[in-house]
């Protein structure tokens, strides 16, 4: 059974995001810092009349922070809106979700977010759960 996925670039790799989790894709403007918050929280940004929490997806995945990323995927988790920064967006297409090949060690942060793989022209792409990258929420899950 196929499902619509958004293919994005994140730290040089492609990831697949379930389109159900994506509310919109935007370019983030000025960000208000949130002192004392975890480093995964880049800050707050205004999206029209809405305030969203901007998540530094790189640090959430245990990578180096990407200061220049501006493009973000807006998702809605538990009554709050989050903007998850991505490097670039490639494509939206239907794919079939496949289980991860046995024995593949993704690394802890990826492991938490990984839900399976989709195949684009023979290239396996990790499907991730955006909610798992949202700080606070993911902490509660684990």
């Amino acid at each position, binding site marked *: 059974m196929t499902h619509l996925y958004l293919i994005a670039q994140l730290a040089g790799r492609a990831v697949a995001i379930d389109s159900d989790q994506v509310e919109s894709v935007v370019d983030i403007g*000025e960000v*208000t810092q949130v*002192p*004392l918050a975890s480093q995964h929280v880049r*800050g707050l940004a205004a999206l029209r*009349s809405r305030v969203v*929490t901007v998540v530094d997806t790189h640090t959430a995945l245990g990578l180096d922070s990407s200061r220049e990323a501006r493009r973000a995927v807006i998702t809605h988790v538990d009554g709050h809106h989050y903007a998850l920064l991505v490097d670039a967006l490639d494509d939206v297409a239907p794919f079939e979700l496949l289980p991860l090949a046995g024995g593949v060690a993704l690394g802890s942060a990826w492991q938490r977010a990984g839900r399976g793989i989709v195949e684009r022209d023979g290239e396996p792409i990790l499907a991730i759960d955006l909610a798992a990258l949202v700080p*606070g*929420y993911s902490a509660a899950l684990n």
Partner: protein
Amino acid sequence: MDDLIQEFIAETRETLEALSGEIVAWEAQPEDRARLDAIFRFVHTVKGSCGFLDLPRLGRLSHAAEDVLAQVREGVRSPDRPLVNAVLAIVDRIGELVEAIDSGTSLPDQGDELLIGALAEGAEEVAQANLPALQRAPARSVRLGVDLLDRMMSGMSDMVLARNELARRLRGGDIDPTIEAALERLSLTVGEMRDTVTRTRMQKIDALFSALPRMVRDTAAGLGKSVLLQVEGSDVELDREMIEMMRDPLVHIVRNSIDHGIESPVERRAAGKRENGRLTVSARQSGNQIIIEISDDGRGIDSEKLIRKLAANGRDETRLRALSERAKLDLVFEPGLSSKDEVSEVSGRGVGMDIVRAAIEQIGGRVDLDSIPGKGLKLAIHVPLTLSIISAIVVGAGGQRFAISRQAIEEIVTDHGEAIRIDTIGGAQVLSVRGRRMPLLNLCEVLGLKRVEHNGPRMISIVNIGEGSYALAADMVLDNEELVIKPASPAVMSTGVYAGQTLPDSGLPMLLLDCAGIAHVAGLDFSRDDDQVQDDDEVADAVTGIPALLFIDLDGARRAVPLAAVDRVEQVEGSSVRFAAGRHRVTIDGRILPLAAQGEIAGRDRLNVLRLKDGANEVSYAIDEALDIITLPEELVPARAPGPIAGVALIDDEQVELLDILWVFDEHADRESEEHAPLCLIAGDRDGWMASFVRPLLETAGYRVATQLSPGETPSVVLSADEAPADLASKAPVVRLRSRRAAAGAGDDSVYRYDRAGLLSALEARMAGKGR
């Protein structure tokens, strides 16, 4: 015309709904004037509306009912049962007719004349009162989904941002004055619009609180209590939805406090409290919550009683007893529990605290209890802040802007101010301002921000977080704004220093600081202050004994009187004292009070008078001079015979006579309500022990006490030292006192004679048993 009829129908329906409770109450108590008035107003309004809406049937019915009610109001007729029933039948018929008009159906009208006929009493002249034009409450409303309102609100915010953007763009170049004027007009309209739209969703909590004073007064009056209500924080604005949801729980809690918490004036005085109970209802914002606190200074929650009650309902008593103190208090939320022995008219409606808690939890809130037995109960309702508008101060720190709730700020000072002193004690900074010393925090340091160099003084806000105050230094104070605060995401809230987020007109999100959270993160600890306060309390408690007023009496003797009985000391002209109607009386504040005295009153130009009050009665007592307030020692040598002196106490190595308040009231008060007090007969009191020791206890508890019955009197309860005389036992319940501590056996229901509480509750229980 149709519009008017629709409005009339809606209004009548609404009033009928509101009136239904009144009607029931009036039925039970036809002499209740307030209810009579409410029903009168209703029929009067209906009558008035029918006149110009051309609804003759309704007009005839309401007119007839109005006439009869007017007669009742004038005292021409008494509201007997047939009359009450007839009026209620008409009110019901009005309701039916209104529904019929609304649905366009017809109702046979032969019943109307019967109903009107039922109002008549013999052949009475119907005098139509010429009443002023009716007053209508214009209450037109529509129901809207919250979703729609939310969309409207966010659309409004977008509009404000778009206007700001436009203004910014236009500011850049040379613009046509006409465009500028148009923009100006747009700005104004958008601003007004925003206020209106915001009002659709938000409401001051005052809407919830404004009904309290009346309710508290009525409830307290109905119970023979007197309660002072203090309302704080009415300005807090809340989501309308939340306010509606809070209404019933709040009303219930307040009624509970008055009914179960606050004691009767007599009990309060016996416990050394002010006669007037105190009830404080306050609202404040703390973090991402609104806290509504209801505190009274009543008797608190009796967890022992709760356990007994639950055990009686079949719960495992040992398990209940094993609970922690806190958990025991929480038992009050168990279903099917009324912590009062008797169900009262006010709160005994089968709605327990369990329902209250369920209602609050439904909106994501919680209830905290803080009960000090004998001292009072504090109930805090925490509701999440879904949306609120607060008046905030915007401060700048480290190049960033933050909002602080105005409510938390006591004052703002600059560090260059004259009265300000900043010292470093150990590793901490301390601010002294006008004799107050408090910790000083630097917002930049707390938040880990780099301080931006700027010239000019730092601004220091003194914030109060309930348990204490501290000073918070920021680089500058920028603005003073009304902000719409929304909750921030968990990742932001988990820092513990923010209360929410907001989007001001600048279009750049801003965080609202949680002052209590900042104090916590910075490690400020106010609990030491708390301990100190508590210590003071304990010290005050340790020197128990009753505070008393020491005075020189007219006969030169030094005497004392318990302070709780003294309302005030007043000086009166000698001429205002008269010997009238068999006794000395004094005129004070346009009232005549009985004047008691020991010594010569006549011949003095001026007199000092103690005004003694016991809740219902007031007596004055003439003295020479008030000296001091002292604490009576526990040791008291009782007087040998009942009289104005209760006994002698040693105060500063001097014998001081203690005035017997009970005797003074008994002898001198102008009696009014005494007949209602239950009569307790002391029987079989051979050694006079009961008459001298138990009697004062019973009298303070509100009984009339007699050792012998006057002809025609029946005692409500008999107190007996041994087996009561058989003829009495058949007429009234008997409580027996025993002189041994242990009961004689399982069948022995007597009470140990030094067990005051046991005695009183046994008396109550037996009397209640008889009533059933």
